[in-house]
């Protein structure tokens, strides 16, 4: 069976900068915006783009992620025309190896892709927050006849040295790639989203596997190798909201962006870019007689008896009487007991904040409180 586009979602990273949030689960499985998990975004984007064949590359703490993917029904991918499967490193005739890098994760699954025989492979990251349809990027890739198309976003020139920067010509063809350059030649940063012509990518992956010096990384190895050998690499200029939520503060900020419902609007009723997720069988969300909630979002199952301002409140979270939460991301099952005060914090799932406990009350930096009992 031939499938024109297969998406491969890289979801194996540990996400060490998210500290204990990723102690037991992979970064793409981390809770987001009261109801979602981060990986819902690329998966829903695929569903909305009509891409129904997806491999999810897992490695670090994959159990929760595997269970969450289930039969794919959360994103409508349980039909006869869909394939959604997780691909963890496994033992083969050649032996057993972990994925040594992003490119190696795909290389170790060449058989999976060969069976599907796609024309194009879309490489995505499992830990980005954005709403898009990939069709325009794939169309551009086809029209330009490129070997690879790389999604780029304009960043503040002062920040450019933190990113992989693409220098392009007048036709947006990439002429140089700089990984975290001291003197960036443009402000176009790679988003880690690629469309490859499968035949070409396959060859480069095979060569990369044999290269003992390689870090087996798309940004560090595959893209520079393709550029050096004169392959055509096209830049696709992404417009709109896109965030890499790799740190506590960026994760917190992206959650706050959802409350603003401005650049990133989950409430616009636009069914063409809707984000799908699990619907928990929770009790109705309840705000108590002296409860107070404003400038916030809250999911079903949340019980708000205290005061909540500028917060993201997940299912089964309880804010007890006289507790005050401001500027917090309160994940599922967290219990903020009576009289506690919490500010600028991410409260990990099932964490209990004790009565009258004070967390970061005058703090400007984001703190993580993680006392997972479950």
């Amino acid at each position, binding site marked *: 069976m031939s499938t024109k586009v297969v998406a491969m979602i890289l979801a194996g990273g540990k996400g060490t900068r998210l500290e204990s949030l990723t102690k037991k689960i992979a970064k793409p499985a981390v809770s987001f*915006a*009261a*109801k979602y998990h981060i990986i819902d975004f690329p998966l829903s984007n695929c569903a909305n783009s009509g891409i129904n064949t997806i491999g999810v590359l897992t490695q670090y703490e994959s159990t929760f992620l595997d269970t969450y993917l289930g039969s794919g*029904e959360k994103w409508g991918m*349980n039909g006869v025309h869909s394939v959604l499967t997780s691909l963890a490193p496994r033992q083969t005739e050649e032996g057993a190896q972990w994925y040594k890098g992003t490119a190696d994760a795909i290389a170790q699954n060449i058989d999976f892709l060969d069976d599907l025989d796609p024309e194009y492979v879309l490489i995505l990251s499992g830990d980005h927050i954005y709403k898009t349809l990939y069709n325009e990027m794939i169309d551009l890739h086809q029209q330009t006849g490129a070997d690879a198309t790389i999604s780029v976003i304009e960043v503040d020139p002062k920040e450019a040295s933190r990113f992989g920067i693409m220098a392009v010509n007048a036709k947006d063809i990439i002429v140089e790639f700089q990984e975290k350059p001291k003197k960036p030649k443009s402000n176009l940063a790679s988003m880690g989203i690629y469309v490859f012509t499968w035949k070409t990518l396959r060859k480069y992956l095979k060569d990369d596997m044999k290269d003992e010096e390689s870090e087996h990384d798309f940004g560090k190895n595959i893209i520079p190798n393709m550029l050096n050998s004169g392959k055509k690499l096209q830049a696709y200029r992404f417009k709109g909201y896109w965030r890499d939520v790799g740190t506590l503060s960026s994760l917190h900020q992206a959650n706050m962006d959802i*409350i603003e*419902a401005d650049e990133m609007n*989950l*409430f616009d*009723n636009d069914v063409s870019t*809707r*984000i*799908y*997720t699990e*619907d928990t*069988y929770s*009790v*109705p*969300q*309840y*705000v*108590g*007689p*002296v*409860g*107070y*909630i*404003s*400038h*916030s*979002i*809250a*999911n*079903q199952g949340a019980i708000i008896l205290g005061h909540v301002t500028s917060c*993201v*409140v997940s299912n089964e979270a309880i804010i007890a009487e006289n507790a005050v939460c401001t500027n917090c991301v309160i994940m599922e099952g967290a219990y903020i007991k009576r009289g506690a005060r919490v500010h600028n914090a991410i409260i990990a799932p099932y964490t209990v904040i004790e009565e009258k406990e004070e967390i970061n009350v005058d703090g400007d930096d984001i703190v993580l409180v993680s006392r997972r009992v479950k």
Partner: protein
Amino acid sequence: MMNKVLGIVNLHDSPSLGVLTARRPLGVTSFLGRYGLMDFTLSNYSNSGIDRVIVLAEREAHSVRSHLGDGQVWVRNTKLGFQRIYKNESLLPSSKFNTDIANLKSNSNTIGEIPFEYVVIAPSFFIMSYDYNELIQSHIESGADVTVLTKRVPGSNKDFLNADVAEVEEEGKVSRFFTNTGRRKEVDISLESFVFTRSAFERMIKESGEVSLLYSIRRMVAYYAENHLMDVRALPFDGYVVPILSLNLYVKHSFDLLQYSSRLKIFKDEWPIYTTTHNTPPALYGERAIVSNSFIANGSIIKGRVKNSIISRDVIVEEGAVVEDSIIFTQTEIGKDIKLRYVLADKHVKFVEQKKVNGEKDEILYIEQGVRV
């Protein structure tokens, strides 16, 4: 044991909730902003391990279908378990002959193919969290043909007026059923959950034509009990029951369940209530939102004030708007500075013109689906 049991949700023979059920079955009527009333019965079956379920739709089968959804199969194994909807194709929905038994009879061939030893039949208007294993176990132990679940309440309890009462004799035998007029000190209300042994169930379907074409399951059970033609027993239930037998009771209990103590009696940690998914985002509260003692469903956007109310999915309460002591169904919009009190607004209502819309404490004002006020 549960693989020997067939569960039936009976949407026939249900009380009218007046305007609310004029165009939809009671079983799919919105409750607490999040559920259809039949979700409680379906969840009881699912949590009891009853994996094969038939919903008997009297009318508007499409709305039953869309509420059950395609992917919403609350069973342990989707090959072995199922949820089907049966309706009587040959009878007009309004026909007095369109009974639950006629529905069963017209689908008797496919029911005949299902392997089961016992069948549980339950309505969607008595809300409770109940493990049907208890009823079935009691039924098997007594060797009865039919066992009915009952609830003992004082005759003075107006919530159960006009409900069926079982006259319970020794060993739980039921000698007759009669209507609760509230004159007795205590009564055993029939919760209309029946468990039948298969042979008794098939006998009832077969004989119903000879007894009366107008009889429902409930009436047939009464007929068998009164004439001592079947061994009908009662099993008392001492848990909490919310009777939705009229529009007034629907409103009264909706608001009562805002109280945490009432809610705890229905919603239990180990007994989830399943419902269909609508892929809505979380609820969004604006900077000037003021909300107290209310249920707020996902997808709603609250910028104004909400007090003592039930807000369903995708409802918008604009800035300056005030919603008090009201029940608002899905996708209704309450425009800027508009004030509602004691209002029950059906789906897709737009409150934009009239600045104040008020019902009364004892008589909620119903606003029809889709109108502009």
